[in-house]
Protein backbone atom coordinates (compact mmCIF):
# COMPACT_ATOMS: atom_id res chain seq x y z
CA UNK A 1 0.00 0.00 0.00
CA UNK A 2 1.50 3.29 -1.08
CA UNK A 3 1.87 6.04 1.46
CA UNK A 4 -0.55 8.89 1.07
CA UNK A 5 -0.04 12.18 2.86
CA UNK A 6 -3.23 13.47 4.41
CA UNK A 7 -2.78 17.06 5.63
CA UNK A 8 -6.23 17.03 7.18
CA UNK A 9 -4.99 14.53 9.77
CA UNK A 10 -2.57 17.13 11.08
CA UNK A 11 -5.46 19.49 11.78
CA UNK A 12 -7.55 16.72 13.30
CA UNK A 13 -4.67 15.73 15.57
CA UNK A 14 -4.03 19.18 17.00
CA UNK A 15 -7.05 19.30 19.36
CA UNK A 16 -6.16 15.86 20.66
CA UNK A 17 -2.74 17.15 21.68
CA UNK A 18 -4.14 19.82 23.99
CA UNK A 19 -3.98 17.68 27.11
CA UNK A 20 -0.34 16.79 26.44
CA UNK A 21 0.37 20.42 25.66
CA UNK A 22 -0.78 21.38 29.15
CA UNK A 23 1.53 18.86 30.76
CA UNK A 24 4.41 20.23 28.71
CA UNK A 25 3.50 23.72 29.90
CA UNK A 26 3.35 22.59 33.56
CA UNK A 27 6.72 20.90 33.25
CA UNK A 28 8.32 23.86 31.53
CA UNK A 29 6.88 26.61 33.72
CA UNK A 30 7.28 24.71 36.97
CA UNK A 31 10.72 23.40 36.08
CA UNK A 32 12.05 26.73 34.91
CA UNK A 33 10.58 28.63 37.86
CA UNK A 34 12.44 26.46 40.35
CA UNK A 35 15.38 26.12 37.96
CA UNK A 36 15.74 29.89 37.87
CA UNK A 37 15.72 30.15 41.68
CA UNK A 38 18.21 27.31 41.89
CA UNK A 39 20.37 28.79 39.14
CA UNK A 40 20.48 32.25 40.71
CA UNK A 41 21.32 30.76 44.10
CA UNK A 42 24.07 28.49 42.85
CA UNK A 43 25.37 31.10 40.39
CA UNK A 44 25.82 33.53 43.30
CA UNK A 45 27.27 30.75 45.45
CA UNK A 46 29.88 30.08 42.80
CA UNK A 47 31.01 33.69 43.16
CA UNK A 48 31.21 33.49 46.94
CA UNK A 49 34.50 34.26 48.65
CA UNK A 50 34.27 31.14 50.81
CA UNK A 51 35.84 28.30 48.91
CA UNK A 52 33.54 25.70 50.48
CA UNK A 53 30.47 27.49 49.18
CA UNK A 54 31.78 27.92 45.67
CA UNK A 55 32.90 24.28 45.63
CA UNK A 56 29.39 23.07 46.45
CA UNK A 57 28.05 25.13 43.55
CA UNK A 58 30.75 23.90 41.17
CA UNK A 59 30.13 20.29 42.17
CA UNK A 60 26.42 20.59 41.46
CA UNK A 61 27.00 22.30 38.12
CA UNK A 62 29.59 19.79 36.95
CA UNK A 63 27.51 16.79 38.06
CA UNK A 64 24.38 17.94 36.28
CA UNK A 65 26.01 19.25 33.12
CA UNK A 66 28.18 16.17 32.87
CA UNK A 67 25.38 13.60 32.87
CA UNK A 68 22.51 13.15 30.39
CA UNK A 69 19.16 14.47 31.51
CA UNK A 70 17.59 11.20 30.46
CA UNK A 71 19.80 9.37 32.96
CA UNK A 72 18.94 11.90 35.67
CA UNK A 73 15.23 11.37 35.01
CA UNK A 74 15.49 7.58 35.01
CA UNK A 75 17.56 7.66 38.19
CA UNK A 76 15.12 9.94 40.01
CA UNK A 77 12.02 8.05 38.93
CA UNK A 78 13.17 4.44 38.82
CA UNK A 79 16.48 4.36 40.66
CA UNK A 80 15.89 6.42 43.76
CA UNK A 81 12.65 4.64 44.82
CA UNK A 82 14.65 1.41 45.11
CA UNK A 83 16.66 3.07 47.88
CA UNK A 84 14.03 5.14 49.64
CA UNK A 85 11.04 2.93 48.93
CA UNK A 86 8.81 5.71 47.67
CA UNK A 87 8.06 6.77 44.12
CA UNK A 88 7.57 10.42 43.27
CA UNK A 89 4.55 11.13 41.04
CA UNK A 90 5.71 11.47 37.41
CA UNK A 91 4.74 15.13 36.93
CA UNK A 92 6.53 16.19 40.11
CA UNK A 93 9.56 14.08 39.18
CA UNK A 94 9.57 15.74 35.77
CA UNK A 95 9.46 19.23 37.26
CA UNK A 96 12.32 18.35 39.60
CA UNK A 97 14.44 17.03 36.73
CA UNK A 98 13.85 20.12 34.60
CA UNK A 99 14.58 22.34 37.63
CA UNK A 100 17.88 20.76 38.64
CA UNK A 101 18.94 20.43 35.03
CA UNK A 102 18.15 23.97 33.89
CA UNK A 103 19.41 25.26 37.26
CA UNK A 104 22.94 24.12 36.46
CA UNK A 105 22.98 25.93 33.13
CA UNK A 106 21.25 29.02 34.52
CA UNK A 107 23.87 29.17 37.29
CA UNK A 108 26.56 29.55 34.65
CA UNK A 109 24.51 32.20 32.84
CA UNK A 110 24.08 34.14 36.09
CA UNK A 111 27.74 33.86 37.02
CA UNK A 112 28.88 34.88 33.54
CA UNK A 113 26.57 37.89 33.42
CA UNK A 114 27.67 39.12 36.84
CA UNK A 115 31.34 38.69 36.01
CA UNK A 116 30.89 40.54 32.75
CA UNK A 117 29.98 43.75 34.61
CA UNK A 118 32.96 46.12 34.76
CA UNK A 119 34.73 45.82 38.15
CA UNK A 120 34.74 49.63 38.18
CA UNK A 121 31.01 49.45 38.94
CA UNK A 122 31.69 47.53 42.13
CA UNK A 123 34.48 49.93 43.07
CA UNK A 124 32.21 52.90 42.48
CA UNK A 125 29.50 51.31 44.59
CA UNK A 126 31.85 50.45 47.43
CA UNK A 127 33.49 53.87 47.29
CA UNK A 128 30.19 55.61 48.07
CA UNK A 129 29.88 53.40 51.13
CA UNK A 130 27.53 50.68 49.90
CA UNK A 131 28.06 47.24 51.40
CA UNK A 132 28.89 44.25 49.19
CA UNK A 133 25.27 43.11 49.31
CA UNK A 134 23.92 46.58 48.47
CA UNK A 135 26.35 46.92 45.59
CA UNK A 136 25.17 43.60 44.21
CA UNK A 137 21.52 44.46 44.65
CA UNK A 138 21.38 48.02 43.38
CA UNK A 139 24.27 48.17 40.92
CA UNK A 140 25.50 44.83 39.64
CA UNK A 141 22.31 42.76 39.56
CA UNK A 142 20.15 45.19 37.52
CA UNK A 143 22.86 45.44 34.87
CA UNK A 144 23.61 41.71 34.91
CA UNK A 145 19.93 40.83 34.56
CA UNK A 146 19.79 42.61 31.21
CA UNK A 147 22.71 40.64 29.92
CA UNK A 148 21.16 37.38 31.11
CA UNK A 149 18.00 37.70 29.02
CA UNK A 150 19.29 36.38 25.66
CA UNK A 151 21.10 33.32 27.09
CA UNK A 152 18.17 32.68 29.43
CA UNK A 153 15.82 32.66 26.44
CA UNK A 154 18.05 30.08 24.85
CA UNK A 155 17.95 27.95 28.00
CA UNK A 156 14.15 28.27 28.29
CA UNK A 157 13.78 26.93 24.74
CA UNK A 158 16.18 24.07 25.40
CA UNK A 159 14.35 23.12 28.60
CA UNK A 160 10.98 23.25 26.86
CA UNK A 161 12.22 20.82 24.23
CA UNK A 162 13.88 18.64 26.86
CA UNK A 163 10.51 18.04 28.52
CA UNK A 164 9.85 15.61 25.65
CA UNK A 165 12.45 13.28 27.19
CA UNK A 166 10.23 12.94 30.24
CA UNK A 167 7.89 10.64 28.34
CA UNK A 168 10.21 7.88 29.54
CA UNK A 169 9.03 8.34 33.11
CA UNK A 170 5.43 8.32 32.02
CA UNK A 171 4.48 11.98 32.09
CA UNK A 172 1.65 12.39 29.62
CA UNK A 173 3.29 15.35 27.93
CA UNK A 174 3.08 16.41 24.32
CA UNK A 175 5.31 13.81 22.66
CA UNK A 176 3.84 10.94 24.65
CA UNK A 177 0.34 12.08 23.79
CA UNK A 178 1.36 12.12 20.13
CA UNK A 179 2.77 8.64 20.47
CA UNK A 180 -0.48 7.38 21.96
CA UNK A 181 -2.40 8.86 19.06
CA UNK A 182 -0.06 7.13 16.60
CA UNK A 183 -0.65 3.84 18.37
CA UNK A 184 -4.34 4.15 17.54
CA UNK A 185 -4.35 5.85 14.14
CA UNK A 186 -1.05 4.64 12.65
CA UNK A 187 -0.65 8.09 11.06
CA UNK A 188 2.88 8.65 12.39
CA UNK A 189 3.86 11.02 9.60
CA UNK A 190 1.04 13.49 10.14
CA UNK A 191 0.87 13.18 13.92
CA UNK A 192 4.53 13.87 14.51
CA UNK A 193 4.32 16.85 12.16
CA UNK A 194 1.47 18.11 14.33
CA UNK A 195 3.54 17.51 17.49
CA UNK A 196 6.51 19.35 15.99
CA UNK A 197 4.29 22.29 15.01
CA UNK A 198 3.02 22.63 18.58
CA UNK A 199 6.59 22.68 19.96
CA UNK A 200 7.53 25.24 17.33
CA UNK A 201 4.60 27.46 18.27
CA UNK A 202 5.67 27.36 21.92
CA UNK A 203 9.35 28.07 21.30
CA UNK A 204 8.51 30.97 18.99
CA UNK A 205 6.23 32.39 21.70
CA UNK A 206 9.07 32.19 24.23
CA UNK A 207 11.42 34.05 21.89
CA UNK A 208 8.80 36.72 21.29
CA UNK A 209 8.06 37.24 24.98
CA UNK A 210 11.75 37.44 25.86
CA UNK A 211 12.42 39.92 23.09
CA UNK A 212 9.70 42.11 24.60
CA UNK A 213 11.24 41.79 28.05
CA UNK A 214 14.64 42.60 26.62
CA UNK A 215 13.50 45.80 24.93
CA UNK A 216 11.68 46.80 28.11
CA UNK A 217 14.81 46.38 30.17
CA UNK A 218 17.12 47.90 27.55
CA UNK A 219 19.42 50.63 28.79
CA UNK A 220 17.13 53.62 28.91
CA UNK A 221 19.76 56.00 27.62
CA UNK A 222 20.41 53.98 24.52
CA UNK A 223 16.85 53.43 23.44
CA UNK A 224 15.69 57.01 23.92
CA UNK A 225 18.47 58.69 22.04
Amino acid sequence: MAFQFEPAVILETLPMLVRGLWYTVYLTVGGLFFGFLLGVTTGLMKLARRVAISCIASGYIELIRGTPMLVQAMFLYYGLPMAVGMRIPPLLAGIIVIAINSGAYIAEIVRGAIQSIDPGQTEAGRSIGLTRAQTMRYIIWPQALRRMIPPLGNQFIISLKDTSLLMVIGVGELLRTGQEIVAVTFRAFEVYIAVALVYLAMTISISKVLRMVESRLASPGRSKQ
Partner: protein
Amino acid sequence: MIQIRNIYKKFGELEVLKGISLHIKAGEVVCIIGPSGSGKSTVLRCINRLETPTSGTVIVDGYDIMDPRTDINAVRTEAGMVFQQFNLFPHMTALENVTLGPIKVRGMKPDEASHLGYDLLTKVGLAAKAQNYPDQLSGGQKQRVAIARSLALQPKVMLFDEPTSALDPELVGEVLDVMKKLAIEGMTMVVVTHEMGFAREVADRVIFIDGGQIQEQAPPHEFFAQPKHPRLRDFLSKVVGQG
Protein backbone atom coordinates in the same frame (compact mmCIF):
# COMPACT_ATOMS: atom_id res chain seq x y z
CA MET B 1 43.36 64.24 57.99
CA ILE B 2 45.20 61.44 56.20
CA GLN B 3 48.28 59.78 57.58
CA ILE B 4 50.03 57.17 55.53
CA ARG B 5 52.92 55.50 57.31
CA ASN B 6 55.40 53.40 55.49
CA ILE B 7 53.03 51.41 53.31
CA TYR B 8 54.13 48.61 51.04
CA LYS B 9 51.99 46.94 48.43
CA LYS B 10 52.80 43.78 46.55
CA PHE B 11 50.82 42.30 43.68
CA GLY B 12 52.20 38.79 43.68
CA GLU B 13 55.92 39.18 43.11
CA LEU B 14 55.62 42.74 41.93
CA GLU B 15 56.27 45.32 44.62
CA VAL B 16 54.36 48.43 43.57
CA LEU B 17 54.76 50.55 46.71
CA LYS B 18 58.03 50.49 48.60
CA GLY B 19 57.57 52.43 51.77
CA ILE B 20 55.38 55.46 51.16
CA SER B 21 54.72 57.91 54.00
CA LEU B 22 52.50 60.88 53.50
CA HIS B 23 50.62 63.29 55.75
CA ILE B 24 47.83 65.35 54.37
CA LYS B 25 46.32 68.17 56.40
CA ALA B 26 42.68 69.20 56.34
CA GLY B 27 42.05 71.64 53.50
CA GLU B 28 45.23 70.73 51.68
CA VAL B 29 45.27 70.03 47.95
CA VAL B 30 47.93 67.51 47.05
CA CYS B 31 48.71 66.52 43.46
CA ILE B 32 50.54 63.30 42.79
CA ILE B 33 52.39 62.98 39.52
CA GLY B 34 54.68 60.34 38.10
CA PRO B 35 55.13 57.99 35.17
CA SER B 36 52.56 55.27 34.56
CA GLY B 37 53.16 52.17 36.63
CA SER B 38 54.90 54.21 39.31
CA GLY B 39 52.29 53.32 41.95
CA LYS B 40 50.61 56.70 42.22
CA SER B 41 47.09 55.35 41.67
CA THR B 42 47.76 52.53 44.10
CA VAL B 43 48.58 55.03 46.85
CA LEU B 44 45.26 56.73 46.24
CA ARG B 45 43.38 53.43 46.22
CA CYS B 46 45.00 52.46 49.51
CA ILE B 47 43.47 55.51 51.17
CA ASN B 48 39.92 54.13 50.91
CA ARG B 49 41.07 50.52 50.88
CA LEU B 50 40.06 49.68 47.34
CA GLU B 51 43.52 48.17 47.66
CA THR B 52 44.76 46.86 50.98
CA PRO B 53 48.39 47.69 51.67
CA THR B 54 50.60 44.66 52.31
CA SER B 55 52.05 46.43 55.33
CA GLY B 56 52.07 49.86 56.96
CA THR B 57 49.25 51.96 58.36
CA VAL B 58 46.73 54.31 56.84
CA ILE B 59 44.70 56.57 59.09
CA VAL B 60 41.84 58.54 57.59
CA ASP B 61 40.08 61.07 59.79
CA GLY B 62 41.12 59.13 62.89
CA TYR B 63 40.07 55.72 61.54
CA ASP B 64 42.79 53.12 61.17
CA ILE B 65 41.65 51.51 57.94
CA MET B 66 43.86 48.46 58.42
CA ASP B 67 42.11 47.65 61.68
CA PRO B 68 39.54 44.92 61.04
CA ARG B 69 37.24 46.52 63.62
CA THR B 70 37.00 49.68 61.55
CA ASP B 71 33.75 50.00 59.60
CA ILE B 72 35.28 50.40 56.16
CA ASN B 73 31.97 51.46 54.62
CA ALA B 74 31.84 54.40 57.00
CA VAL B 75 35.42 55.40 56.15
CA ARG B 76 34.65 55.23 52.46
CA THR B 77 31.88 57.76 52.85
CA GLU B 78 34.45 60.13 54.33
CA ALA B 79 36.70 59.77 51.30
CA GLY B 80 34.92 60.33 47.99
CA MET B 81 36.57 58.71 45.00
CA VAL B 82 36.49 59.93 41.40
CA PHE B 83 37.67 57.45 38.80
CA GLN B 84 39.41 57.83 35.47
CA GLN B 85 36.63 55.88 33.75
CA PHE B 86 33.86 57.74 35.67
CA ASN B 87 32.12 54.45 36.60
CA LEU B 88 28.69 56.02 36.60
CA PHE B 89 25.84 53.56 37.05
CA PRO B 90 24.48 53.26 33.49
CA HIS B 91 21.02 52.06 34.54
CA MET B 92 20.32 55.15 36.63
CA THR B 93 19.73 58.78 35.72
CA ALA B 94 22.30 61.39 36.67
CA LEU B 95 20.14 62.32 39.64
CA GLU B 96 19.72 58.71 40.76
CA ASN B 97 23.47 58.23 40.54
CA VAL B 98 23.89 61.11 42.96
CA THR B 99 21.08 60.18 45.35
CA LEU B 100 21.78 56.44 45.67
CA GLY B 101 24.47 56.92 48.32
CA PRO B 102 22.52 59.34 50.52
CA ILE B 103 19.40 57.15 50.37
CA LYS B 104 21.00 53.73 50.89
CA VAL B 105 23.99 54.61 53.02
CA ARG B 106 22.80 57.64 54.96
CA GLY B 107 19.15 56.60 55.10
CA MET B 108 17.99 59.92 53.71
CA LYS B 109 14.38 60.26 52.51
CA PRO B 110 14.10 60.17 48.69
CA ASP B 111 12.67 63.70 48.34
CA GLU B 112 15.30 65.11 50.66
CA ALA B 113 18.00 63.27 48.72
CA SER B 114 16.73 64.52 45.39
CA HIS B 115 16.84 68.05 46.80
CA LEU B 116 20.47 67.50 47.70
CA GLY B 117 21.05 65.84 44.33
CA TYR B 118 19.72 68.86 42.42
CA ASP B 119 21.86 71.19 44.53
CA LEU B 120 24.98 69.18 43.74
CA LEU B 121 24.18 68.84 40.04
CA THR B 122 23.65 72.61 39.99
CA LYS B 123 27.02 73.04 41.59
CA VAL B 124 28.71 71.05 38.82
CA GLY B 125 26.59 72.86 36.22
CA LEU B 126 24.39 69.93 35.24
CA ALA B 127 20.99 70.54 36.83
CA ALA B 128 19.47 70.43 33.33
CA LYS B 129 20.80 66.90 32.82
CA ALA B 130 19.37 65.45 36.05
CA GLN B 131 16.97 63.12 34.24
CA ASN B 132 19.48 62.01 31.60
CA TYR B 133 21.19 58.66 31.63
CA PRO B 134 25.00 58.42 31.50
CA ASP B 135 24.90 57.26 27.86
CA GLN B 136 23.34 60.59 26.96
CA LEU B 137 26.14 62.62 28.53
CA SER B 138 29.56 63.63 27.24
CA GLY B 139 32.68 62.44 29.01
CA GLY B 140 33.13 65.75 30.81
CA GLN B 141 29.51 65.74 31.92
CA LYS B 142 29.82 62.16 33.16
CA GLN B 143 32.85 63.05 35.22
CA ARG B 144 31.08 66.06 36.72
CA VAL B 145 28.13 63.82 37.68
CA ALA B 146 30.64 61.41 39.23
CA ILE B 147 32.07 64.26 41.29
CA ALA B 148 28.56 65.22 42.42
CA ARG B 149 27.90 61.58 43.31
CA SER B 150 30.94 61.53 45.60
CA LEU B 151 30.10 64.88 47.14
CA ALA B 152 26.61 63.63 48.02
CA LEU B 153 28.08 61.68 50.93
CA GLN B 154 29.63 64.90 52.26
CA PRO B 155 33.10 63.43 52.38
CA LYS B 156 35.93 65.11 54.23
CA VAL B 157 38.43 64.19 51.52
CA MET B 158 38.07 63.83 47.77
CA LEU B 159 40.33 61.42 45.94
CA PHE B 160 40.75 61.89 42.20
CA ASP B 161 42.34 59.11 40.16
CA GLU B 162 43.41 60.68 36.86
CA PRO B 163 40.00 62.32 36.50
CA THR B 164 40.68 63.90 33.10
CA SER B 165 42.82 61.23 31.45
CA ALA B 166 39.92 59.58 29.63
CA LEU B 167 38.50 62.85 28.35
CA ASP B 168 38.73 64.52 24.97
CA PRO B 169 41.03 67.52 25.33
CA GLU B 170 38.27 70.09 24.89
CA LEU B 171 36.34 68.56 27.81
CA VAL B 172 39.18 68.61 30.33
CA GLY B 173 38.64 72.25 31.29
CA GLU B 174 35.06 71.87 32.53
CA VAL B 175 36.11 69.11 34.94
CA LEU B 176 39.17 70.98 36.18
CA ASP B 177 36.98 74.05 36.77
CA VAL B 178 34.72 72.06 39.08
CA MET B 179 37.76 70.72 40.91
CA LYS B 180 39.20 74.22 41.31
CA LYS B 181 35.91 75.36 42.79
CA LEU B 182 36.09 72.55 45.32
CA ALA B 183 39.66 73.45 46.21
CA ILE B 184 38.70 77.08 46.76
CA GLU B 185 35.86 75.97 49.06
CA GLY B 186 38.48 74.30 51.23
CA MET B 187 37.95 70.65 50.33
CA THR B 188 40.85 68.36 51.18
CA MET B 189 41.88 66.82 47.88
CA VAL B 190 44.35 64.23 46.68
CA VAL B 191 44.65 64.30 42.90
CA VAL B 192 46.59 61.86 40.76
CA THR B 193 46.95 63.72 37.50
CA HIS B 194 48.95 64.48 34.39
CA GLU B 195 47.57 68.03 34.27
CA MET B 196 50.66 70.02 35.24
CA GLY B 197 48.80 73.31 34.76
CA PHE B 198 46.26 72.25 37.35
CA ALA B 199 48.94 71.10 39.77
CA ARG B 200 50.84 74.36 39.37
CA GLU B 201 47.78 76.52 39.85
CA VAL B 202 45.71 74.71 42.48
CA ALA B 203 47.94 72.39 44.49
CA ASP B 204 49.43 73.29 47.85
CA ARG B 205 51.95 70.53 47.41
CA VAL B 206 53.06 68.41 44.48
CA ILE B 207 54.44 64.93 44.95
CA PHE B 208 56.51 62.96 42.46
CA ILE B 209 56.29 59.19 42.78
CA ASP B 210 58.53 56.90 40.82
CA GLY B 211 59.42 53.26 41.38
CA GLY B 212 56.98 52.96 44.29
CA GLN B 213 58.60 55.71 46.35
CA ILE B 214 58.11 59.40 46.87
CA GLN B 215 61.08 60.96 45.12
CA GLU B 216 60.29 64.59 45.70
CA GLN B 217 57.63 66.80 47.23
CA ALA B 218 57.40 70.56 47.35
CA PRO B 219 55.02 73.48 46.89
CA PRO B 220 54.29 73.87 43.16
CA HIS B 221 56.40 76.97 42.44
CA GLU B 222 59.45 75.31 43.92
CA PHE B 223 58.59 71.89 42.53
CA PHE B 224 58.37 73.05 38.94
CA ALA B 225 61.04 75.76 39.10
CA GLN B 226 63.83 73.84 40.81
CA PRO B 227 63.26 70.12 40.49
CA LYS B 228 66.07 68.42 42.38
CA HIS B 229 65.68 64.80 41.50
CA PRO B 230 67.14 63.90 38.09
CA ARG B 231 64.26 61.59 37.26
CA LEU B 232 61.76 64.33 38.03
CA ARG B 233 63.68 66.74 35.78
CA ASP B 234 63.58 64.14 33.06
CA PHE B 235 59.87 63.50 33.62
CA LEU B 236 58.97 67.18 33.65
CA SER B 237 60.92 67.90 30.48
CA LYS B 238 58.99 65.17 28.68
CA VAL B 239 55.59 66.19 30.01
CA VAL B 240 56.07 69.90 29.52
CA GLY B 241 57.50 69.25 26.09
CA GLN B 242 54.21 67.67 25.16
CA GLY B 243 52.00 70.31 26.71
